Each structure stands twice: as C-alpha cells, then as structure tokens.
C-alpha cells in the first residue's frame, strides 16, 4: 500500500507571553497508508489536535516535513495549500461548523462549487447521492437550525466528501453527540473507509478509537506508542445489530482500554 501522508520530525511550539515557548509537538514522525483508518489518542494537551492541523496544512510546523502524496506541503504557499484542502482533503469537526446563513444543501455543495472541477449540476447530483447514503435526504432545503446534532454531523461528512477527497480528517467528530448518534456516525465512517477513503481521527473516546485499525498514543508532544487493532470488518458497521457483533465490539474496546492503561492513559 502507498503512503498517503508521511510526516518527519515535526516540531511546533506556541508562544505564551515573552520568552515562554511551550513545545506542543516534539520530533513527531508518522505515516498514513492509503485506505487506512487510524486514530490518535492522548490526554488533553498531549498535542493530538495540533498534530492533525499541522499535517493537513491548516497550520505550519516550526520544522520538519510533511509529504502528502509525495509532495512536501510544509513549504507550499497559502493558495496552493487552500487548493489542496479544497480538492484532496475532507474535514469533520466536533462543532460541526456549518455556515449559518446557508441551507443544509448549500453548505454541502459550497466547496464543490468553489473547486470548479465539476459542473454545478454534477456537484448537485453528488450532494444528493451523499445525502441519500447518509440518510438525510429529507433535510436538503432546511436551515441548519432545523436538524439534530447527529444529522448535522452527517451534513458535515457529506460536505467533507463532496470533492471526493483521498483523505478525511476528523477532530473529535463524535465529541458533541450522544452515544447512539455517535455509534451511527462511526458506522458511517467505517463504511466510507471501506469504500476507499483514508481516514484519520483525533479522539479521546476509547469507543471511537476501538473502531479504527490503528491507534497512535500521544503524550507531551510525542507519539509514545502504537497499537494495531486490525481491520474491524463488519463489526465496525452496526455494532448494535446483533448480540454477536456487540460482544465483538465490546471485546475490542476492552482490549484497547487495557493497552492504554499500560501506556499510562
């Protein structure tokens, strides 16, 4: 499998007042392979979100290289980075961050129209398809105030996928959702991953992390451990579907929890 993303020796620190530099990333190396579904865990302040924003080009590391599809993006100019995010990457957030004054449908197609790689008719068609796939077709014309949190996160996922990005980044995508909505979103992400999209999530929820194939554990700005859980397979999709799948999921979760405990989480 090809490496989609290869980060080497990433360093980043934030300045808190004069002469008070707080390192957040220290010589971080990480790779993501095509089609992988990985998660980064760690306590608050361990640097996991910073890692995410530095490898996706929203923020720039102080030093180190980030190869995205074999291209170093750390030194790309602002416009190129924007293009990359628009066309090749998708993002989902904890606070879904939809534009309040656009309808749900318009929120989804916005990046599609901006990218100008497809005709607007095509973008509309793809949006309808995605909404059907995520089960929110009936919301198309609504304002974003007329939908539940789970539904809005589905809108967020549709928006992230509108330009068919190779990779999807998620920052605590289920953090603001209740457990059943969270289950549904994870199942959806697993399905998207199986269809070929690489996914990287940042989370502190063991339940979420246990659905991914590989878990990186961060502490004090370093990746300190890595756990390969292997393909989740059908179990990842509807864990509550049968007693068997639920039990399998539970086992996987406990397995991860035990490992994390070992790492000092």
């Amino acid at each position, binding site marked *: 499998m090809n490496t989609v993303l290869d980060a080497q020796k990433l360093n980043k620190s934030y300045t808190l007042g004069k002469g008070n530099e707080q390192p957040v990333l220290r010589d971080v190396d990480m790779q993501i392979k095509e089609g992988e579904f990985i998660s980064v865990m760690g306590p608050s302040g361990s640097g996991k*979100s910073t890692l995410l*924003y530095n490898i*996706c080009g*929203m*923020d720039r590391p102080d030093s180190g290289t980030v190869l995205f599809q074999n291209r170093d993006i750390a030194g790309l100019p*602002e*416009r190129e980075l*924007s*293009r*990359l*995010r*628009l*066309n090749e*990457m998708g*993002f989902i*957030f*904890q*606070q879904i*961050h*939809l*534009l*309040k*004054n*656009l*309808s*749900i*449908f*318009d*929120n989804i*197609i*916005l*990046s599609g*129209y*901006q*990218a100008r790689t497809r005709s*607007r008719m095509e973008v*509309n068609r793809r949006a309808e398809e995605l909404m059907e796939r995520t089960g929110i077709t009936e919301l198309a*014309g*609504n*304002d*974003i*105030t007329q939908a539940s949190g789970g539904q809005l996160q589905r809108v967020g996922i549709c*928006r992230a996928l509108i330009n068919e990005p190779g990779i999807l980044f998620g*920052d605590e995508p289920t953090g603001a959702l209740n457990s059943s909505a969270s289950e549904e979103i994870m199942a959806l992400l697993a399905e998207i991953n199986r269809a070929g999209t690489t996914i990287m999530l940042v989370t502190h929820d063991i339940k979420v992390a246990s659905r991914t194939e590989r878990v990186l554990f961060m502490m004090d700005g370093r990746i300190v451990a890595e756990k390969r859980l292997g393909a989740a397979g059908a179990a990842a999709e509807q864990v509550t579907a049968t007693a068997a799948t639920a039990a399998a999921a539970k086992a996987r979760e406990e397995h991860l929890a035990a490992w994390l405990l070992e790492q000092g989480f």
Partner: protein
Amino acid sequence: MLLLRIVRRDFLRKKSVTIVVFTFIMLSALLLAGGANLVVELTASINALFEEARASHFVQMHSGPVDREAIETWARTDSTARELVKEMHVQEMLTVDGSSLFIDGGGTVSEENSIMDISFVVQNESFDWLLDLDNQVIDLAPGEVGVPIYYLQRYDLELGDPLRVGDATYSIAAFVRDAQMNPAVVHSKRFLVHPADYRVLSERFHEVEYLIEFLLNDVDRLGEFSAAYLAADLPQRGPTVDIRLFRIMNALTDGIALAVIILLSLLLMGIAMLCLRFTILATIEEDYREIGVMKAIGLSRRDIRNVYLMKYLVLGASAALTGYLVSLALNPILTSNITLSFGSAPVPGLLRAIPLGAAGLVFLIVVASSAMILRRFHRISAVEALRSGGAGETPRSGRFLPLRRSRFLDVNVFLGLRDVVQRVRLFGILVLIFFFCAFIIIIPVHFLGTIQSPSFVSYLGIGRSDMRVDLRQSEGIGERFPEVVSAIKEDPDVERFSPLVTSRFTLVQENGEEEPIAIESGDFSIFPLDYMHGTAPRRDDEIALSYLYARDLGRDPGDTLVLLVGGEQREMTVSGIYQDVTNGGRTAKAPLPFDSENVLWYTISLDLVPGTSLEAKMHQYSQAFYPARVTDLEGYIAQTLGGTIGQLRRVTIIAVAVGVAVAILITALFLKMLIARDITRIAIMRSLGFSLRSIRAQYLTMTLSLLAAGIAAGTLFSNTVGQRLVSLLWSFMGAARIRFVIDPLQAYLLLPLLLVTAVSVTTVLSISRIRQINGGIQ
C-alpha cells in the same frame, strides 16, 4: 466611579471604533463652529468697515456735468431731503483706461482686457473714506498710490511695489478697503492718489464721473429718499446704488463658501449619527448576553441604559469640545479673506459664544440620538438574551436565495452579494454613508464646473457670445457708440453681433411712487437668453424681468407694470423672467426706444467667424474702440466671479478630501466590525479550502456593491435635489434655477473611480488581517 471605569474600559476595548466616531463628531463640530464663527465675523467686520469708513447710504453715479449748487440747494429745500440728509458731497472720479495702467508689479502687462472701470480719486473729506488694511483713513503723500485689495489678491502685490499710469510711476503705499467697491462682482474700482498727483493725472486723462453721495439720518427711510431724489431734476446719468446693495455684494464672495461649509458640516453630522447608530447597535448585539445577565441580576433598564449613555455622553462632549478648540485654530484660515476685505473687528463677547453654542448643539444632538437608539434596550428580555446568547439580529434564513440556484456567478461573488441582500438593514447604513460621501464630493465639483463653464453667462443675464464690447456712459459716448457699431458691422471677421443699450426709465408703482429702473433694449433674438418662465419680449409693450426683480415687484409673466416712456405712462406686460446675478440681481429687458440722455451703458455682443483669433481681435478692438472694454466671455466670468471661484475651488478640494477620507474610515471601521462578527464563518471557509483571495473577493463584492449603490444614489440625488439646493442658495443672488454643467468623464468615471479605488484598497488592507485566522477553529 464605577460608571466611568466601565466607560474607560469600553473605550480601550474598542479603540478604533471609538476613534472613528470621535473623529466624525469632532469634524462636524469643527465645521459647524467654524461656519458659525464665519457668520459672526463676516457680519461684525462688514459692520465695522462700514462704520469706520462712514459708508454712504445713497449714491448716484453720474457722467456728465454736475451742478453741485443745485444738489446742495435741493438737499436744503426739499421737504424729504431736508429731513433726511445728514451729510452730502460729490466725489470726482477720473477714469483711466486699462491700457494705460500697469499694476502687475509695475511690469509690462496692462489692464487692457480688464472688465473693471478704473478710476483715480482723492480721499473724501468727511465720509465714504477709503481705508487701509488697519481700517485707518488713508493719507497719501505725492507719488504714492492706494490700490484696491481686488488687485492685491489678483497680483499678490506688496507695499512699495511700483504702479505705472501712462508714463508716471507711483509707489504703492496702501491697499484700499472700499466699502462700496471692494467685491469683484462690483465692476468699478477706486485708486487713491494725492491731490497734487490727481491734478497732473487730470491733464492727461479727461474723462470724469461723479459720485453724488449722501449720508442719511434714518437709513430705514432710504426708499423714500431715493424716490425724492429721482423725482427731482438732478443728475442721474448712471446707476443708483445704496448701502443695502453694498452689504449684499460684500457678503457674497464669502457667503457661498460659508453655505458650502455649513452644508458640509450638516452632512458630516448625518454621517456621525449613522456611525453612532451603527456602533451602538453592534455593541448591543455584542453585549447581548451581558445585558441579559445584568437584567437577570436585577439591574433596572434605566441603570443599564445609563452605563451605555454615559459612554456617548463622554464621547460626544470631548469630541464636540475638541472640534470647537480646533476650530479656534482654523478660524484665521477660514476668515483670511474676510480679514483682508474688511479687517478683523472686535466681536462682542455674547456673539463670541455662538460658535461654542454650535459645537454644543452637535453635542446635544449626539446625546439625544444615542438616548433614542438606546431605547432598544427595552426590547431585550433577560431570558431570551441568556438563552440565545447572541444575535439580536433577525435570524437569516438559509433558504433565501439558494446557492444551488446560481448557475454562473462565481461562488465568492455570489456569497458576497447574497450577504448584502440578506443583511440589508446593517448594510443599508453603509450605503447611506457612501451616498453622503458621493454627495459631498459631487455637489461642489458639479457646482465648480458649472460656474466655470461659459454657459454660466446665462445666469449673468447675458446671451452666449464669443466677445463683449462694453461702453460706459461718458462724454461723447452717444457718438462713439454708432461708430463702434458700424465698424463691427463692416468687419468681415464678425459673424453676427447685437448692440444692446441699457438706459434708465421710471417705474410707477401702484401707490404712485416712482422708482428708477434700468432697462436693456435691443434685439434679444440674436444671442438668446434662457428664460426661467415665459419668453423674451418681442413687442414694445412687453418687458422681461430678472428673477429677483420680478420677486421684489411681485410680478409673474402675464402681469403688467407701468413705465414712464418718453414722459408718458405705458402699461407693459411681463413676457418672461430670466436669471441674473449682476447688478444686485435686479435688471430688466424690453425693446423700447431709448432716450440718449438716459443711457447708462452700451453693450455689443458678437460672434467671430470660425477660425478667427479671439485674442488678436480683442486686442485690436480694445485699441480701436477706446475707451470701450473688450472681454471674452470666460474672462468676463473669471473677472466677475474670480474670488467666488477661488473660494469654491478651495472648498471643493476640501470636500473631495473629506468625502474620500470618510469613505476610507467608514470602510475600515465597518470591515473591522464585520470581520469580528464573521470570524467563525471565515475560519470555516478557510478550513474548507477557501483561499485568502476567495474570501477577499467576498468582502470586496460586499463593499463595492454597497459603494456602487451609494454612488448611484448620490449621483442621482446630486443631479436632482442637489441642483435644486444649489439653486436655492443662488436664488438669493438672482439665479434660482441653476442647471449643472456636468463633465461626464469626471462625474461618471473619475470621481467614482476615486471612491472605488479608496474603498477597494481599504477593503484589501482590512481583509489582510484575516491571514491570522487559520484553521484553528475549535
């Protein structure tokens, strides 16, 4: 004090907004106080000049022999005159033709093409004194000359400069303030010399004119006196003028600049109010939750309101006071022309307070309007404020103008336009301010263009022609005039010409009182005039009146008035009304047979055959037709309205600068607030992959579409209402229907481009701040 602490904290938190609002309030206070000061100074200095100079109350100009005895006898014996005349004298004025006079630093350029009637006089004995720049009665030694300040301004002269008349050279020892003839719109100028020099000059120049001057006991009975004088068989071959006319003429030059300044200050005040409204609403919106909390913990509405009101009280007071103080520093510049023309007079203490009062008025308006806007607090419910935690703004529906319906517009342009339409209430204020900016800029520019254009002559009561030849009443002019006419008739370079004769008739009023009326007669169809109402007079019982004259006499087209023509009463029908700012705005035209005894002046308008040199012809004519004055129309306007045009040009430059500065400040302020409000939105789009350029395009679309709306409205408004406003201003001087002469390139391309550039650059610079807003939107 807690309240003051809150106010201070608030100022610090919103520094730039506070500074902008402060600036606008200060500027409007500055201009209003400055304008008020100008009014006070103007009135006081004109009064002072008139008093120091002991200005005449009634003056009859006359060319031809004068029997002083007869006038004095009349003044002693006539019942009205005996009662009213306090003092009288006859001043002799020696007319010097412009081609013999070299003022320009004694240099080589003569006054040949000047439209001024130049006379040399000696100082009067007891009244109508000519004063120096210290308002002292000028006393000259032989060899010295006093030069009217009109020439000081024109040529930038200095005391001691030489002045040449023919082959005699004099040294300029004083600049003359002349209560009667100061302003440029008065086409007569008096030079002062020592009696000995006067005798020498009168050997060389032979033409004299007389000023028969009276000081009255009761100025209010001027009308009565004037009628009595004209009824008597006394010299009256020349215009009759009085102190009321002197006053108007003197106030005119500065009056126009004054009117523009006051207009400007009112507009700025409007902008300050809009800014206030905008910032107060934005603050309320921002502090919505805080206000809810204050309400929830039991503070009364009034308490909360006072917190906010206190802020604007402090802001308004300090800005208005600063404006007033700055105006004190600026006053010398604004009043420089007044000081030069009339001298600076001590202003009574009570009147000194007027500019301060004007600044106070600005303060009161600020506080009152803030209080009014703050009434909105009543509508904030504590529960609602706490629950929604923001957006007092009406919720914006996403269903409106869906993006998916847009087929061709660029996404960013579409989003920008959509935002404008959606937040129309918020953006409306900006459109209004841009509208004001456009208005502030366009009105003076249009007006300046109009007053400088050759077609402005139609407001001077004359038809449009290439050239004018003027002959004033003087000895032998009756014979000279036909000679000039026939010479012009035979000149093959002249395409067409029209001789016009202005002579004095008597108007009989309803109550039987008689008053003199100067009427121009001739063929009015050759160089036609624009009429406001009705048409030119065609039959010999028709008359056209100037706007101010018609208003004074209360006549409309179709009405009649009675004239004495050749000793007989004749009923004349008013055929039309035209605009005229010359001669105090009071002139008339009728095709009547003139009586050569009563002729005041002759004019010949002419057009040259295309290709003929105007310059050469002017030179040729002024040599050939001495003592006639030959001017082209532009020169005529420039010399008549030169001072006014100069003042207006200065004001126009200020207005354009103010307009552009306001647009820049407001755009910067507005974007600052807008970006603060849209910060999440911008961050979301940045994270989705919208480049800085795309986001800039959205905001540029917003500001430029608002600007376009503002400019369009401002242009439309200026061309309609603005035109009427300027007409209203000029109606006091005799032109009540000014039509702007618009230079389309300037008005519809350059000025908008200037604003567009200013606003675009400001937008781009303001937007560059969002470089710091990146994906970190947790």
